[in-house]
Structures are given as C-alpha cells and as structure tokens.
C-alpha cells in the first residue's frame, strides 16, 4: 500500500475581528491510500471543504504539512485534480475547450491534446457535445464536463467537493454510477478519490472509508471503514446498518465536541443558534408530535426529502431550546416540546420566549444590556463585536441575524434596520409613558 496523500497535524485558523483568530481545523491527521475512495463527512461549516482545499494545495494550512507520495509541494498539489460543487466551468469556452484547459501545459502537440480531450469527452458520455457551451447543457452534463476536465489531467487523486449536491436526485444517481463504473473497470488512471459530501447514504454507497469531522474546530472524530463490495445494495442490511451508525455519529456531535474540547482552546463561550426560523422549528415539533413524539432522524430525513445538512440545524435548534432530546439517531420530544406542539399561536410565543431566556444565554445577555440602558437601545455593532471575539466575522453576522430573528419572534427585543439599533420594546413604551 502506498500513501498517496498524507495530512500531518494540519490546523487552519481564519482571521476574526480585532486580531482574533478562530480555528476551523485542528490537528487533522489522515492518509489516502492507493485504491480507495474516501468520503469526508461532517456538519455544515465544519471545514470539510477547507480540508479538501488544503489537500489540493489551494489553501495553505496554518500548521502542519500535506505530503504527496511522501514529498512536500508548493502551490497546487501536483498529483490531484478537482471537481467542484458549482462545476466551475468557464462559460465562454466550449466543452472541448474547457476539457483542453486541463492539458494546457502537458508536453504534447496541439493535435495530440485535442485527441486526448476528445477521448475523455467520449468516455464521460458527452460525445457530440464538444462544440456546445456550458449554458446549453443540463446540470448533469455540466458536471460531466467538470469531471472530464479533471480526468484529462490523469491525476493520481481525484478530489470532489460535493460534486452531486447541485444536481437533482436522478441525475446525481446516474452520474455516481457512471463514475463508479469508470473506477471499477479501471478505465481511468486515477488511483484514489476523496469525496466531500453531506449525504450519508452517498458516502456509504460510494466510499470505502468515511472520515467524520467534528465542529468548532474540526477534528477527525471517526474513521469508519465501509467494507462492502461494489455494487452496493441500498436495501441490504449491512448497508442500512452503516447508514444508521453514521447517522447516530453525526447527530451526537455535541457530546463528541464536549469530550474533545480542551478547556484552553474553548474560545466558544456562547451557545450559538443555527440559522433556522421559528416557523421551521415549530413545524418540526408539530410533525414529531403527530408521529408519536419519537422518530428516527434518518427516516424522517428521508420522508421529508431533507438532507442531513438541512435537517440537523432544525434538530439542533429544537434541542437547544429544550423541546427535544437526541439519543443515538433518535429525536424525542420533551414535556415542553409536547406543550409547544399543542399550543395556540400566541401561547407558542410565550413558551418559546420562556425557553429562549432559560436556554440561550446570549438572548438573556442582550436583554440585560438593553434593560440596563435608559433608552433601552444599543447599536448592532456592539453585539457584533462581542460575538466576533469568539466567532469569525461572517459567522458573527449570521449569528446576530439569527438571534435578532428570534428576538423579533419572541418579542423580547426589536431591531431597526435603518438605524441599525437593537432595542427593547418594553423600555421604549416605558419611556414614552414617562414623557
């Protein structure tokens, strides 16, 4: 076995506000060996894509090294090519020209390059579309061009950043099968593939190994081997068992984080609320109540046609507010959750408000700051700066937007976009009364 890629002690910091750094990847170790497909899994924002870009040499790590065949490299990794979620095709170049781009500096004559590009185009099933522009193609065909452009370089390792997530279900399935066929039959010189995905089923279907990342900062929390032979039967017992196992790993990230986090690095003093609307959470609670108060998250994801990526934030929010608990892939309503499901629209607000004050310390702190001010208002930047001490700039903005949205729903405080002021409605009425 040859180590094609070895990632040693890689960490990555991004710059936050006021000279703060925040860590997205911490002490990552992983190897990719010849002949395997590796899936990188993790909650959204966990830094899967950043890790993939570090392997590709597009982003340089803050600490640690990446080795290709036991050697360091500078700039783009000489042994890899990449397929992008957004396809990243050059819209002003034809299919042929896009594919040829991968051969630009290959030591070949112009004619040989063209032949090779056409050969690859035939192989990925775009025969006849050489002269077409990307805009004339469907999404699936566009991703085929992206794949062709990557394969024409004859890379040792093919990196794929959520390559199927911008496609509809059937198209994605079709492309996965074709790619696996090329891989299985040895039609491509590629020796290993790394696939970033948020689809657990996709990972179990494609990969030989799943690496699960935790969040804030990301570490390798699990390294799960998928010892099934291709082609895999999605209905088979070993398949569903692996899917269930990964589901329960992913939904218990919280505990994983708590165990892994050393106190010195615990910069995150605040519980963040995922960017989810109140409507989505109450809708989810109602649904769970209708289904008997306890569900398997994998199953509900499937019935709702929701990716884990979309479902997890809702589950997480419901958990933070104390409406439910998560144990080994199951979600169960608490007493408060049940009350919420049965309540009227107005009662719901009261319940959510009480829970927000009890379970989300940030809410309480904002309210406290507003109440202690005589005019009951405070500029947005004030809170933003506090958040930026422990979150990145963009994330802090997002978090504040999320908090404001919950503040508005619960009527704990309000926000005026024009003046960018957060204010307590109570304090305002108090003041007008005083006048």
């Amino acid at each position: 076995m040859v180590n094609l890629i070895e990632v040693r002690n890689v960490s990555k910091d991004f710059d936050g506000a006021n000279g703060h750094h925040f860590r997205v990847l911490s002490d990552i170790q992983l190897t990719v060996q010849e002949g395997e497909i590796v899936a990188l899994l993790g909650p959204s924002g966990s830094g899967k894509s950043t890790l993939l870009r570090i392997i590709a040499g597009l982003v340089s790590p803050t600490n640690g090294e990446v080795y290709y065949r036991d050697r360091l490299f500078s700039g783009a990794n000489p042994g890899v090519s990449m397929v992008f979620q957004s396809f990243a095709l050059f819209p002003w170049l034809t299919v042929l020209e896009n594919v040829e781009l991968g051969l630009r500096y290959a030591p070949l004559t112009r004619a040989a390059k063209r032949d090779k590009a056409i050969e690859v185009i035939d192989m990925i099933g775009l025969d006849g579309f050489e002269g077409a522009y990307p805009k004339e193609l469907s999404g699936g065909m566009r991703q085929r061009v992206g794949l062709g452009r990557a394969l024409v370089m004859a890379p040792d390792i093919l990196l794929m950043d959520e390559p199927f997530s911008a496609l509809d279900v059937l198209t994605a399935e079709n492309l996965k099968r074709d790619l696996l066929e090329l891989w299985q039959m040895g039609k491509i010189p590629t020796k290993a593939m790394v696939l970033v995905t948020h689809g657990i089923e996709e990972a179990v279907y494609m990969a030989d190994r799943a690496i699960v990342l935790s969040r804030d900062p990301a570490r390798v929390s699990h390294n799960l081997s998928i010892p099934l032979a291709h082609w895999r039967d999605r209905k088979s017992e070993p398949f569903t068992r692996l899917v269930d196992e990964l589901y329960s790993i992913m939904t218990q990230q919280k505990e994983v984080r708590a165990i892994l986090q050393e106190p010195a690095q615990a910069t995150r003093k605040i519980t963040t609320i995922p960017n989810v609307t109140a409507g989505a959470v109450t809708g989810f609670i109602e649904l769970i109540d209708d289904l008997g108060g306890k569900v398997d998250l994998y199953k509900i994801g499937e019935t709702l046609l929701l990716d884990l990526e979309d479902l997890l934030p809702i589950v997480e929010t419901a958990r933070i507010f104390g409406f439910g608990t998560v144990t080994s892939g199951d979600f169960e309503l608490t007493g408060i959750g049940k009350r919420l499901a049965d309540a009227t629209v107005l009662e719901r607000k009261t319940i959510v408000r009480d829970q927000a004050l009890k379970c989300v310390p940030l809410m309480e702190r904002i309210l406290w700051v507003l109440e202690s001010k005589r005019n009951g208002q405070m500029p947005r930047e004030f809170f933003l700066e506090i958040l930026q001490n422990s979150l990145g700039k963009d994330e802090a903005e997002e978090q504040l937007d999320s908090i404001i949205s919950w503040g508005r729903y619960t009527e704990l405080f309000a926000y005026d976009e024009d003046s960018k002021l957060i204010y307590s409605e109570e304090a305002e009425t108090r003041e007008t009364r005083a006048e």
Partner: protein
Amino acid sequence: MYRWLMQIRLKQKIGWPDLVVVVLIAGTLYAVLDLGKGMVEPFSVQAASTISLDPKYLPYYAGRSLLRMFIAYLLSLAFTLAYGRFAAYHKTAEKVMIPALDILQSVPVLGFLSITVTGFLALFPHTMLGAEFASIFAIFTSQAWNMTFSFYHSLTVLPNDLKEAAKINRLRTWAQFSKLEVPFSMIGLVWNSMMSFGGAWFFLAASESITVLHNHIQLPGIGSYMAEAIAQGNIPAQMYGILTMVIVIVAVDQLAWRPLVAWSQKFKLDQNDEKDAPTSWFLQLLRRSEWVQQAFGALANAIVAMFPMRTKPLPQVAAANDLKRRKQVWRWIWILIWALVMLFALRYLWAAFNDIAKLGLMQILFAVKMGFYTFLRVSVATVLGALWTVPIGVAIGLNARLSRIAQPLVQVFSSFPFNLFFGLIAMIYTAFHINFNWGAIPLMMLGTQWYILFNVIAGAMAIPSSLKEASLILRLTLVQRWKTLILPAIFPYLVTGLITASGGAWNASIVAEIINWKQKTLTANGLGSYIATATTNGNWAEISLGIAVMSIFVILINRLLWRPMYRLAENKFHLE
C-alpha cells in the same frame, strides 16, 4: 465527434455579405494609412490654422477625428488592462492606485489641456505630432478611468470557484489573463468602452481647436471645422459639421459598438435569461459570412502560432528559502520605485503650491467665489435636467416598445458632442440679449441631461412586472404609485445618472462658460471661464489654481453628496 465543424467548412459560397465586408475592411485599412501620413506633417502655425469650410473636406476631417478617437481608445484599453490588473493583485499598490483613480476621475480633464499641449509641442517641436498627442491624451483621460474601474472591479469579484479551477488546472499568468480574467470582465469592459467612447466625442471636439498663449492651434478634424465655422459665423458650414458628426456617431455605434455588445453576451456568467439579449445586424452579417469566419479563424491561428505554448514541465518544489529571498528583493525594489514616484510627485506639487501662493489670498478667494458660481450653475443644470427627464424617462421605460426604440437613440444623443451647437446658441443669445450668466446653464444641460434620461429609462424598465401589477391591484393613486413604487425603484439609477451628469457639467463648464461668436466673446462668471481665460493668456499659476479649486469642489461634492446617496441607493432601494 468534432465533425460538425468540418461540415461547415465544406459548404463555402461567396454571398453578398462577403463583398460588403471586404469593401469595408479594405477601405478602412487604406483610410488609416492615408490619414496616418498627415499626422507627421511639419508643424507651423500657418499649416495648423488652415481649416477649410468646404464640405468636401468633411469626410477627411471626420476620418482624422475618428483616427484620433480610436488611437486614444486603444491606449485607454492597454492602460486599463495593465493598471487594473496590477491594482487588483498587488495589495500595497492597490491602496494607492484605486484612490488615485478616483481622484483622476474627478479632475476636470479640459483644464489640463493647455499644459499637455505645450508639453507635447515641446517634445515634438517641428511637427503637428505634439498637438495630435495632446488631443489624443485629452481623449484618453476622458476614457481610461472608468474603463479601468470596471476591469479592476471585475477582477476583485472573480468567482472563487473559477479561480480555483484555473489554479488546479495550473494555468499560468498569461492563460489566466486570457482565459479567465479578460473573458470574465468582458461585458463590463465592452459596455464601459462604449460609454467612454461616446463621452469622449465631447473632449475630441474641445481639444482639436484650442488657444494657448494666444497661439491658436487647429488640428484637422471635425471639432476644428466646427470651431472655424463658429468663428466665421458660417451657419451652413455648422449644419454640415453637425450632420457629419451625427453620421459618424451612428456609424461607429452600429458598426463597432453594437456588434461588440452583442458579441460580448457570450461571456455572461449567469447562464440563463437570453430573452432581452442585445442584438446587432452587423454582427449577424459578419457571422453569416463564410469569408469573415475563415479570415478570423486564420488570424486566430496565426496569433496562436506566434506564441508557442510552453511545454516546460511545471516547477517542482521550490526551496522555501529561495522564494523568501526573492520576495524580499522585490519588496525593496517596489519600495524604491514608490519612493521615487513620491519624490517626483512631491517636487511638482511643491512647485504648483509655490505658483499658487504667489497669486495671493485675494486671487485664491476670487477663484473659490468663481467656483461657487459654477457650482450653482451645475446644480441648477442637474436639477433642471432631472425635472424633465424623470417623468419622460419613466413614461418611456414603462412602455416596452417605446423603450426599445428610445434607449439606443438616447444613448447616441448622450454621445453627441453638444459643444458643436454652442455657436448657433450664441447667435440666438446675442440676438435676444440674453444674460449669459444664466444662458450658460442650458449649454451645460445640453450635454449632460441625456445621462439622466438614459439611466431613468433603464431604471423604469427594470421595475419587476409583479410590482407594477401589485400597484394596480391595490388601486394606488398616481401620487401613491410614484411615491411607493416608481421613485424608490428608479432611485439607484437616478443617482447614477445624476453623478455622471454633474461630473460632466463641471467638465463642460470650461467650454460652456465662454464662447467666441464671430468677433464677440460671451463670458459667464465662473470657474470654467476663469480656467479658459487663463489658458488663453498662458497664465500657468492661474490655471493651476483654477484646476485645484475645481478638483476640490468636485471631490468634496462626490464625498459629501454623491457617495452617501449612492450608498443609500445600494442598501435601501436595490431591487434584487
């Protein structure tokens, strides 16, 4: 397979489009040759001042003007690509280069004309080349800045995935430039080129015929023809001149810009929405002509063959130390270059400061007072322009059919150099004894109001039909409709139009506040006439003072009025 391309090559026929194109191209080539010869004729005041008003010379004059315009445009384009790219990729340089561009954009170009003319005349003492260069330079300065901004902006918003794809495909600098950066910027670049080129006619007309140090310089061209016609009071000649100008502008628009705009649509990143794509009959004609296709193909192949692709293997792992040392050396070289540039700039700034200081406080205050007069005039011209263009523009923009006809028309209007009309207007003013202090306002409006109209039409066209339908369902009254829908929706466009119009009006003041009609001179009190008079007298100190005051006025207005307005427009009234 690749067969379909081959098949097209097989069925070649000569069609009438081929003939038209051959005639056009051959004619153009010869014209460039012939006109180019005239440029190096020996300079003498005598030769420089003979402009014949015989209309048979007009095609020649128009050709000379056009040549100047295109040379200046190519220079602007080269400047744009170099400056824009450098600014976008060198973080330190960017901090200086972008604000510098912003200021250059605010400075009244025409004020500099006298300086550049004398400078270039000194460089080429015995030919007309100096004056030619000065004129080309004036046109260049009116085009380059916003083209550069457009390119720079495009580079800063290059989509990350495309950049990564280029990197993973290991494209080197040139490939990245030609396959990614220029194509991505193409739409903005072409659009801005068209607008800049249109705006530059005004500067062409103003820069061909100028008086420096009582020395009257006239370059053969349509601007000089008009100036001469105005000076002689020859009304038919003025009519001929205006007619020629209209023909030239329409021809350039139809044969150069429209095809380019239509062609550039293929660089659209957004891959849907083909419905309202601009079209061009000329481009269709070119695309249908087999000969042209072949000629372009051969040309492209020849160019490609000239640059053999480097098949040098990709650099292996470079020693980190070596890289670091090289970086250090470059850093010092840059610091040195910047230091030299700064020293140079400071030296001349000091000289200018000394010159102005010699004039004394009273003179400076006088210039500032003149600045206020011009400021008032510009404000009135802009507001009046907005008052009539907003209702008309909205009416046009809300009517789909009307706007399709009117929009290109207004665009041609906006590129027409209205300083050509000044002679005729001066005649009317003298006949009716109109106070020129007020009379200069319509002259400014003549050139600048079209920008407002153009933008308002575009704004009204962009109102989503769902909002229009909603306002009908809600039975909004006319006033409510304007208050809640139309004005907020066109606001960002209106602001853009007003910014362009007011900037244009400041520049126009230099030619609009003082007109010579036969032997009479009409003068309005203002900074424009102050600079123009100083130029005629060759009073360098006063010219510097005038330009400095005007630049400060323009920059202050931009910072204090337009920028906040623009931000408001972007944040609050931006329709997604």
